[in-house]
């Protein structure tokens, strides 16, 4: 087993690397949010306050297609439920009480949890360092990337000319791609996609996302998603030990 001193350098290097990777991805979030009609300040508020990438993308996705506030909030929150499980997992590992849980909660996302769990073997100090270093690195670089992307997109005239409207579905696809390792997950995703497209002309804006999401979850449960313990898709999403869950 590696000691804390042996793992510290590697943890900090990895934390910075993951931060730079997600920072680059924040560029596209900032640009897409402004192209969707948010102001630079509103875009930045999402990265500062919401700070959970998939929910942020989902919120601007619903707003851009004309969905109402309630649907946008519900979609972002539903996607954010997996952070509750990450927090549940991190709570005993971080061993914190009182107000310190407030900043820890904000930094509890896919990457920080994945890094912490990947270093659990090396002991509690390494686990905590991995969590805080990754969380803080991403928080700073994610917000910096958002600002640059948002300001940059404001300088463009028509996003469609630059293909930015295709960047959003590409971003969503890249987000869910690592979770498509099993057939139940693929069937859930495929059915949700088809239902969303079919329902769009029939239902009020925003509603098709929720209907399709419910159908996708039902299809996934019916086909056995998450019932096998070694399923990479579900372990990544529920915060089980998974070094490959990131970023």
């Amino acid at each position, binding site marked *: 087993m590696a000691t804390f001193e042996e793992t510290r350098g590697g943890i900090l290097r990895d934390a910075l690397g993951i931060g730079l990777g997600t920072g680059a991805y924040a560029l596209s979030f900032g640009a897409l949010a402004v192209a969707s009609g948010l102001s630079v300040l509103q875009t930045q508020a999402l990265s500062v306050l919401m700070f959970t990438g998939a929910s942020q993308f989902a*919120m601007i996705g619903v707003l851009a297609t004309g969905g109402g506030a309630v649907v946008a*909030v519900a979609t972002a929150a539903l996607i954010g439920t997996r952070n509750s499980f990450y927090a549940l997992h991190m709570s005993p590992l971080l061993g914190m009480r009182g107000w310190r849980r407030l900043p820890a909660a904000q930094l509890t996302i896919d990457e920080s949890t994945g890094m912490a769990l990947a270093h659990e073997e090396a002991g509690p100090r390494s686990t905590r360092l991995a969590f805080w270093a990754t969380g803080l690195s991403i928080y700073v670089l994610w917000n910096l990337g958002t600002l640059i992307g948002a300001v940059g997109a404001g300088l463009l005239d028509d996003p*469609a000319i630059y293909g930015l409207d295709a960047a959003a579905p590409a971003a969503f696809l890249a987000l869910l791609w690592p979770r498509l390792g099993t057939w139940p997950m693929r069937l859930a995703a495929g059915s949700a996609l088809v239902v969303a497209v079919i329902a769009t002309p029939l239902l009020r804006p925003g509603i098709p996302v929720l209907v399709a*999401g419910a159908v996708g979850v039902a299809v996934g449960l019916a086909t056995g998603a998450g019932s096998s313990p070694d399923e990479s898709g579900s372990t990544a999403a529920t915060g089980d030990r998974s070094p490959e869950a990131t970023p």
Partner: protein
Amino acid sequence: MIWATVLAGSAACYLLKIAGYVVPERWLEIPAVRRATALIPVALLAALVGIWTFTSQSEVTVDARILGLATAVVALLLRAPFLVVIVSAAVVTALARALGWLP
């Protein structure tokens, strides 16, 4: 209205994070809840992929974004980094429009 949405959504997401640190563990350990939680992001993001690629103003449409999404699939199969996936999708879509292949 956008501000209210941004702030309410942020509050909801933060409370969900806090919940894991304060609620009794047994609530979230129910197997059906865990399985559904793994599926929710996959289903909702896939729905958004469909709507953003194949619809426009509540109509089903076929345009250059489909080529962009196909490019993203190829890039993901080649294990390209996130930014390469997005930029290649945008570039192919913009090129298809510039060349007049698809609207």
